[in-house]
């Protein structure tokens, strides 16, 4: 090994008898800090987009979904992976009493991990090559190198323990061995299997991996650090090694069995869900044992005043307790029904990865760094780093938890979806602001490890000892080796075997068995001939996956009353039989898209993709203008493919319904969950689904124009413009154009009816989420847009001419009474105007008759009618209006 060189260029000698390869500790620590800073930048950029959605422009590489992928993979593999490796290069030689397997292997592993996995992984994800599986977003080609790296890590760190008897292994050693072995088992299962099986089955394996990534990789290595740093920094042995081992086996038995709790109330068999829920509750008990043992080990150590590594370790332990108890509770059906899909879960995952795991990782790095003679150490900066990170993580967790409660309350209340977005925005701002102390904390950590005097780390640790924390010099060698080693060794062998069996059991119980049950359900319920996806739809699906749409829009309607009333019949297994991998998602920023087929017109969808806020003013959806040639009405192939895919969502079930559901209902009489879906009153409860319904809300006697104007800005101004003249930001992209409401007089009933039913064949959706009073307020605002025009006198002769012209040319569509019910009306995609509820202005009518209405069946009439006839019929049709103008 070459001698390290100090920052001043001076050759620094290293003790040759140290079993620790401090160069690799140094290299992985620096790599960890660099990657966490980059991952935090990704995190800040995606959090900014929640209230500044256009902040990164239309550059696809900086699009929300891609950066979301880069953020989480950067944290787990880049930051935590490197931090754990840095710790392992210090801890394994100390624990095993001998060096790691090979210094050369260590250099290869460092290069592979950072330059073949993390860096290319980020580049590929940002370039749009990824897989839409949570905590597994790096593409399969990178997964192969991760698996190779994990094999190398196992070879590097496990053999040094071979010389020790199992009964002699300290609990940190067990956690290290366990993490390396079980991550190697879980990673291929979680990253590759979901790509091979479809729909709900794919989701079952993803659920396993989401929890295995945390439970078998992150948690064991974090706990290995805590069990190492706390007793080392306090100079006192861990409170109870028995409890430590009890916790170790309990965690390795139970963590893999938790996976399906990510999909509670889904179509995955309830037996698997209940098993995972029970395992989650038991895990909470085990975690309390682990945390109690760790905190008792730090008792009396004045840890907040002492060694910085100890401080990070104890705070990590506290975060672990909170996040684990929270996890056990939110897996229970009563709480899961409320908070799932909301920011509550995002707060939970940040507390796990940024709180518990990150603080443990920092504790490990600092502890090892203090014991490298040739590096600098700035205790004051590290002290500030601790406080900044503690403040940042705490604020972020509390903020997101509150946001989740606000969102879930609104979702349960049936309030319009956008209400939850609007009310969450202040909390999203708070989350971004919490990134300031977090970023400052990481920068101070970096600064603290690169500045200050050399060797000051060990000095700082000693000063802490002087404050009441014993330097790890007390060595009570009172333990005996005469005790029954054989019995204990056998116990550990049996337990180790059992842990592997439990892992296999988890895959069998929560992956294979549910998969079989789902296959059976698909065979029984699926229509005989289900449309697969066309080439265009498949390309659209790939775009949906690539851009991370599933990370804001779920594709699973849960078996809960709130989901059924908002979205429709819960998702059945056969609906996802072509979804490989699944795109169920675990978070809803926008609404569920399981039934998005036919809910919006094509031009509305394009306008929404091109400029989301032009049609939904408070939307936080990123713009995908890159899929268009400069305007929403000029979609490129990518936009067409994406829309084609969106139109497949829910299509198969809709085609099979209601006969298909009725047939299945007779087969699954004893399955209450299947019954719940099959007997749902409405297959697609999407508010924008423009199917005529007779339950028109009653118009209220009083109107509130202030409320109406707020609703107007929220729902209508994007297309119709602020003044109702039909010139909103999205207007130019829609065909037919939004109505110019300032030209016509409308009856209240007519407006409320249009608002409630929408206008099929146009971008005008049915605003079913508005109540009767809200519709009344909104209609009153629309009526106020009318620009007064002088009443033009017309003669009886003109009226007679108008009647003649109308009966000869207009009655077929608009009907004898002008009510839009002519005999041809039913054949038209866009219904003819109903003049009994709408009195057109003279100028507007003449314009329509002269130019037609693009996008409808209304053609120009100038080739068949004279100017006088046009004027006459314009006057005549105004007579149909039911109210006095």
């Amino acid at each position: 090994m070459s001698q390290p060189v100090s920052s001043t260029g001076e050759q620094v000698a290293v003790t040759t008898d140290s079993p620790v390869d401090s160069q690799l500790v140094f290299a992985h620590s620096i790599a960890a800090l660099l990657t966490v800073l980059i991952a935090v930048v990704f995190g800040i950029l995606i959090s900014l987009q929640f209230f500044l959605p256009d902040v990164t422009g239309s550059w696809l590489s900086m699009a929300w979904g891609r950066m979301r992928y880069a953020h989480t993979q950067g944290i787990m593999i880049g930051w935590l992976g490197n931090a754990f490796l840095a710790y392992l290069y210090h801890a394994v030689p100390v624990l095993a009493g001998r060096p790691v397997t090979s210094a050369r292997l260590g250099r290869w592993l460092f290069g592979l991990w950072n330059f073949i996995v993390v860096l290319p992984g980020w580049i590929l994800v940002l370039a749009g090559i990824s897989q839409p599986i949570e905590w597994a977003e790096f593409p399969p080609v990178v997964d192969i190198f991760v698996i190779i790296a994990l094999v190398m890590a196992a070879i590097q760190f496990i053999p040094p323990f071979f010389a020790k008897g199992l009964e002699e292994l300290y609990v940190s050693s067990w956690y290290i061995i366990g993490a390396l072995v079980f991550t190697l088992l879980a990673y291929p299962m979680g990253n590759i299997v979901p790509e091979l099986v479809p729909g709900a089955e794919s989701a079952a394996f993803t659920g396993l991996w989401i929890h295995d990534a945390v439970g078998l990789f992150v948690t064991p290595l974090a706990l290995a650090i805590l069990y190492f740093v706390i007793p080392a920094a306090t100079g006192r042995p861990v409170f109870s090694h028995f409890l430590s081992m009890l916790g170790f086996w309990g965690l390795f038995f139970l963590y893999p069995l938790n996976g399906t709790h990510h999909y509670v109330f889904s179509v995955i068999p309830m037996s698997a869900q209940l098993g995972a829920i029970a395992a989650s509750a038991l895990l909470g008990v085990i975690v309390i044992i682990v945390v109690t043992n760790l905190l008792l080990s730090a008792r009396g150590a004045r840890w907040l005043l002492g060694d910085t590594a100890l401080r990070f370790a104890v705070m990590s332990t506290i975060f672990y307790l909170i996040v684990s108890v929270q996890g056990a509770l939110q897996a229970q059906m009563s709480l899961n029904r409320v908070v799932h899909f909301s920011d509550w879960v995002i707060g939970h995952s940040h507390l796990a990865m940024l709180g518990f795991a990150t603080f443990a990782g920092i504790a490990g790095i600092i502890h090892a760094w203090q014991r490298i003679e040739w590096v600098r150490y700035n205790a004051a900066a590290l002290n500030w780093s601790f406080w900044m990170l503690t403040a940042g993580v705490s604020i972020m967790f509390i903020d997101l938890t509150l946001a989740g409660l606000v969102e879930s309350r609104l979702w349960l209340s049936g309030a319009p979806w956008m209400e939850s977005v609007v009310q969450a925005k202040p909390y999203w701002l708070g989350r971004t602001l919490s990134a300031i102390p977090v970023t400052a904390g990481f920068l101070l950590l970096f600064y603290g490890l690169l500045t200050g005097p050399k060797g000051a780390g060990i000095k700082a640790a000693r000063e802490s000892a002087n404050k009441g924390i014993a330097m790890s010099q007390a060595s009570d060698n009172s333990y005996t080796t005469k005790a029954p080693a054989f019995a204990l060794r056998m116990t550990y062998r049996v337990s180790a075997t059992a842990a592997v069996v439990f892992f296999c059991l988890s895959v069998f119980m929560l992956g294979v068995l549910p998969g079989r049950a789902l296959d059976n359900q698909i065979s029984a319920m699926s229509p005989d001939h289900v449309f697969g996806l066309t080439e265009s739809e498949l390309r659209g699906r790939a775009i949906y996956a690539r851009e991370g749409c599933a990370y804001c829009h779920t594709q699973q309607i849960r078996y809960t009353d709130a989901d059924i009333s908002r979205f429709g019949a819960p998702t059945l297994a056969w609906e996802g039989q072509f979804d490989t991998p699944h795109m169920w998602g675990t978070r809803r920023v926008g609404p569920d898209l399981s039934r998005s087929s036919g809910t919006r017109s094509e031009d509305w969808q394009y306008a929404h993709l091109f400029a989301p806020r032009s049609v939904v003013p408070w939307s936080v959806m990123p713009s995908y203008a890159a899929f268009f040639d400069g305007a929403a009405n000029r979609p490129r192939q990518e936009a067409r493919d994406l829309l084609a895919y969106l139109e497949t969502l829910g299509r198969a079930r809709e085609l099979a319904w209601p006969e298909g559901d009725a047939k299945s209902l007779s087969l699954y009489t004893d399955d209450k969950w299947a019954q719940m879906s099959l007997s749902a009153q409405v297959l697609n409860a999407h508010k924008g689904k423009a199917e005529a319904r007779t339950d028109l809300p009653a118009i209220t006697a009083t109107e509130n124009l202030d409320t109406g104007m707020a609703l107007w800005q929220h729902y209508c101004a994007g297309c119709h413009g602020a003044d109702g003249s039909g010139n909103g930001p999205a207007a130019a992209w829609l065909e037919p154009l939004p109505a110019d409401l300032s030209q016509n007089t409308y009856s209240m009933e007519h407006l409320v009816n249009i608002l409630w039913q929408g206008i099929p064949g146009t971008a005008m959706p049915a605003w079913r989420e508005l109540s009767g009073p809200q519709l009344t307020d909104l209609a009153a605002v629309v009526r106020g847009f009318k620009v007064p025009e002088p009443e033009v006198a017309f003669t009886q002769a003109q009226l007679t001419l108008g009647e003649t012209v109308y009966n000869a040319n207009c009655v077929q569509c608009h009907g004898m009474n002008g009510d839009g019910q002519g005999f041809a009306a039913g054949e038209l995609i866009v219904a003819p105007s109903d003049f009994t509820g709408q009195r057109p202005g003279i100028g507007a009518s003449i314009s329509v008759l002269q130019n037609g209405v693009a996008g409808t069946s209304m053609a120009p009439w100038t080739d068949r009618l004279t100017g006088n006839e046009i004027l006459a019929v314009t006057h005549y049709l105004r007579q149909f209006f039911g109210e006095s103008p």
Partner: protein
Amino acid sequence: MIVNVIVLSALVLAGIYVAIWATRKEFRDRVEAPKQEFQHQVSSFDARFVDGNTSLGREGENK
């Protein structure tokens, strides 16, 4: 069935382990032994610094 057998077996084994731990002091001592050994390992490693026994000389000096 096989799942029940595995889970019950695990519970029985865990029960035997706890029972032995509760009734046999030498077993308890043996289970606890690694924590003392760990302290010894850590203190031995740190002793290199405590004694100033590094090629850098006394710790804290910015050489």
